[in-house]
């Protein structure tokens, strides 16, 4: 089931209120050029990860978000992994903002990095911007 941003925020606030959780939170955001990534959650648990791409001009291709999970420093047992959103947005597009809200969720080890980028599955264009947030208490 997909929950909305508002619901995720509300759930996080509720947990903090009821259980007296520390003010630290997984909620973080990063803008890198035209791409943003936002994670919502509590502590080391991420309930939602989303990304946006600002497209400043007409664009003939399609758009698909991908996410990269990078293990924390010192974790040599795991390698960075890429996850492609199952949702491809079909172009052509006029200037606007693409949004994908299907990034990785769950409980992560402290120091795990979640990054987001966008690609054109038709292969016509390179899309810049790879913001990352580090999951920390």
């Amino acid at each position: 089931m997909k929950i909305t941003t508002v619901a995720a925020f509300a759930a996080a606030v509720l947990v903090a209120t009821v259980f007296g959780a520390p003010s630290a939170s997984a909620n973080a955001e990063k803008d890198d050029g035209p791409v943003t990534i936002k994670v919502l959650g509590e502590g080391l648990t991420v309930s939602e990860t989303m990304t946006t791409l600002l497209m400043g001009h007409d664009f003939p291709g399609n758009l698909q978000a991908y996410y990269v999970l990078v293990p924390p420093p010192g974790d040599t047992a795991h390698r960075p992994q890429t996850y492609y959103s199952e949702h491809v947005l079909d172009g052509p597009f006029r200037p606007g903002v693409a949004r994908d809200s299907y990034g990785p969720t769950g409980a992560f080890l402290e120091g795990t990095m979640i990054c987001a980028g966008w690609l054109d599955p038709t292969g016509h264009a390179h899309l810049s911007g790879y913001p990352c947030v580090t999951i920390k208490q």
Partner: protein
Amino acid sequence: MTTLAHEGWTPVTPAHSDGEYTWQMFADAERPSFADVVPKPWPVGADYLNVFIEAVDSAGHSMGNGTYGLREESQPLYYSLSSKEGFPQFLEVRFIEDLAGVTVETDRRTIVIDAADIEPHYGMRFWAMPLEDGENLVAVTSRGIRLEHVDTSGIPAETGYYPLPN
């Protein structure tokens, strides 16, 4: 103070403090194995430089946000914004070392960054500062380059494409 320093990253700015928060930028051209996980092809002339900011508050809470590191020739001037609940929004700027300086415009003030004050690393200079509560970035400019900031925070949370108003 920071975890990245202990992990062998290169500090690319001194540690700055405003009394409440301490922040510093780091870069690393080696890790992680970017080429394995990011879709190809890379743009011609691109290389890899992972740039992060770390900030610590007076209670010892930290935040670390950055980029996954594709540095493109078409980006002599570049900026990022980082935020985490409980921290101010940090603006990070990087620019090639032969630019004489950078001007940051917000809706409250203009900040002039003199390149001569900043030691270069990896062929670039790096600079960061926290924005005030409610302060919004307008643009980052240098020698004919003007990067206008467009706020996309207001678009709906649902996956989709949202054309900008004409």
